[in-house]
């Protein structure tokens, strides 16, 4: 009776992993449900335990049980870690993901689990903070702020209640590392938070998970209950988001946990000094906290040895969108964008040429292939007018209309704006209107592109022109028909609006929306009907 491993990850289930598991169980196998290995074109994946280790077959269906068990199945992959996609990786944080049964405490302990916590508890809090500083770990959520300095501030804050908050509101399109880790190796995150609690003297921790991740919420709650005795007196609790992307911003997240509207707070005060319930709070992303057990168990130097420039350690990059080998690729900083998209990602899934990639979710910039030389490093991307964010890379083939993507960036901002600050609350809606005018003007002079689907926010399509009637005269300079709707004027207005949003907004939602908009406009002017030679439209 052979043991087989089938992923219970939400993506695997979406592709039918449950039916596969049932089929093998019906065939009498002992089925162990694991996290996902992180390469989705081979899912649903089954690994069969044999003398030479676990042999993978994928993708497979419920009807392939016999072919898999007798090894004759066409999609036999051999040992998964030998596949090129996995061999090149440096899985410090995701070492156990896809291997162990996520909620089995023994399986976790057998693979180096709790070692980091034990070592941390043997050290004084200051020593633990020093280790995190020495590792060079920076915020994996996107801000890239040195995690050790944040912890130091909370440790130095006066005694009394302190909190550890994990930002698991991973709302960026193209990112799923947090989801995979929480579903695949929940104790790793719990161990990281327990170490943080010991380091700064916190008694209570919250994990704020977005409601769009139901599997994460269930797995984390089960894991917290099972491991409560191991992390005591530190108490952990999951709090579910409610469909507001802006709650990925740390202060909006804190307000949300406090039972309020997820509105962004002004800083200062910094959350490290006045965070949750006004108390000193460590607030870090899932990946930042999940990297900590490795730093304590293997030593800060081992973590810092890997990396590029001031970006030390590994970054779990997520390849998404129109990409052949979509999945999770944990690698040290420094690897170039081109290697990630073409060698590792294998280009587009549609087979058409890659025209653009968006790095860092809906607020990240679009990069044309001409910029694929860029090394994956916070500073390098910043200089190139973009950002790493949560390291999600969304690939587009040449059927993409960059004007529509710029419009979608504004529409997404309008849909998710918390409504507190003027540049974002009003600017995003005006941005959609400007893009509608540009696209309408462009489509008069060029073949019509597929009609954009109306976004949730009320974007106006009709423009009631008043041809100089009484109202027109009364409104004088502001009369609709005196507004210059030429592409050149609207493009300049778009740049002015982007400037106001970038430097005026209270947080990154309004502040970074100009990244995708301006990068699309700068790198793909042809899609905006600009004077540059219009590329004949893709069929």
């Amino acid at each position, binding site marked *: 009776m052979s043991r087989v491993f089938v992923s219970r990850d*939400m*993506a695997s*289930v*979406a*592709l039918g992993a449950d039916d596969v598991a049932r089929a093998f169980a019906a065939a009498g196998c002992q089925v162990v449900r694991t996290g996902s290995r992180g390469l*989705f*074109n081979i*899912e649903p994946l089954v690994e069969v335990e044999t003398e030479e280790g676990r042999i993978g077959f994928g993708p497979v269906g419920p009807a392939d049980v016999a072919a898999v068990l007798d090894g004759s199945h066409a999609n036999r992959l051999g040992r998964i870690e030998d596949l090129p996609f996995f061999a090149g990786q440096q899985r410090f944080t995701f070492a156990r993901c896809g291997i162990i049964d996520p909620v089995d405490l023994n399986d976790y302990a057998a693979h180096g689990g709790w070692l980091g916590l034990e070592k941390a508890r043997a050290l004084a809090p200051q020593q633990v903070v020093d280790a995190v500083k020495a590792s060079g770990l920076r915020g994996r959520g996107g801000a890239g702020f040195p995690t050790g300095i944040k912890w130091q501030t909370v440790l130095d804050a006066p005694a009394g209640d302190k909190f550890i908050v994990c930002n698991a509101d*991973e*709302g*960026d*399109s*193209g*990112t*799923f590392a*947090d*989801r995979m880790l929480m579903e695949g190796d929940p104790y790793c995150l719990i161990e990281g938070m327990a170490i943080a609690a010991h380091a700064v003297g916190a008694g209570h921790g919250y994990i704020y998970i977005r*409601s*769009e*991740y139901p*599997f994460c919420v269930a797995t984390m709650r089960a894991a917290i209950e099972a491991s409560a005795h191991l992390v005591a007196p530190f108490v952990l609790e999951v*709090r*579910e*988001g*409610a*469909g*507001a*992307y802006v709650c990925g911003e740390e202060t909006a997240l804190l307000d949300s*946990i*406090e*039972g*309020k*509207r*997820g*509105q962004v707070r002004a800083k200062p005060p910094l959350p490290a000094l006045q965070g949750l*319930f006004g108390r000193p709070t460590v607030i870090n992303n899932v990946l930042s906290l999940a990297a900590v057990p490795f730093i304590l168990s293997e030593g800060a130097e081992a973590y810092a040895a890997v990396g590029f420039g001031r970006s030390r350690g590994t970054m779990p990059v*997520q*390849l*998404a*969108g*129109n990409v052949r080998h*979509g*999945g999770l690729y944990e690698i040290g900083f420094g690897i170039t964008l081109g290697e990630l998209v073409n060698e590792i990602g294998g280009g587009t*899934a549609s087979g058409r040429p890659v025209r653009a990639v968006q790095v860092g*979710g*809906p607020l990240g910039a679009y990069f044309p292939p001409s910029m694929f030389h860029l090394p994956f490093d916070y500073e390098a991307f910043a200089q190139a007018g973009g950002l790493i964010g949560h390291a*999600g890379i*969304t*690939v*587009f*083939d040449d059927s993409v209309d960059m004007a529509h*993507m710029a419009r*979608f960036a504004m529409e*997404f901002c309008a*849909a998710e704006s*918390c409504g507190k600050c003027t540049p974002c609350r009003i600017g995003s809606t005006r941005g959609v209107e400007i893009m509608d005018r540009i696209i309408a003007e462009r489509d008069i002079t060029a073949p019509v592109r597929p009609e*954009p*689907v*109306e976004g*949730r926010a009320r974007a106006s399509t009709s423009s009631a022109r008043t041809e100089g009637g009484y109202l027109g005269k009364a409104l004088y300079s502001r009369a609709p028909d005196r507004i210059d709707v030429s592409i050149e004027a609207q493009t300049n207005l778009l740049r002015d609006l982007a400037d106001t949003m970038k430097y005026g907004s209270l947080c990154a939602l309004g502040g970074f929306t100009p990244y995708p908009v301006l990068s699309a406009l700068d790198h793909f002017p042809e899609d905006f009907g600009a004077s540059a030679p219009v590329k004949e439209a893709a069929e």
Partner: protein
Amino acid sequence: MEDFVTEWTARHGATRDRLLPLLHAMLEEAGYIDDALVPAIARALNLSRADVHGVITFYHDFRRTAPGRHVVKLCRAESCQARGGAAIEAAAAKRLGVAMGEVRADGQVALEPVYCLGLCAIGPNALVDGRPVGRIDAAVLERIALEVAA
């Protein structure tokens, strides 16, 4: 439902930070949060009705009207768009006979937008009554339509 509120707060606590967990529990229990229950929630957590109304109307999940018998949450984010999400959205609206963001007139199915389910390499994706469905194409859409017709 009013006693559901008092029982829940008696068991899980009545401090202000319990508001979102309570609203989630009410969603699970009744599918939506009726405006008439806001006074009971406010009393239980010692908040004003304005506080509670402000929170309910802020978060997309806290619906104030009955949901469809079936709910299809279709992802509209960039990764799914890169894999043909926009076309699938148009097709779904037509096939299911309901506009995006609405509940069908007969209350049978609701088509809702969602910005990213974290399945960004296998889009277009959707949550059908809470169950993830990936690589949606015409055939998968047909299966979903039959399922939600029941």
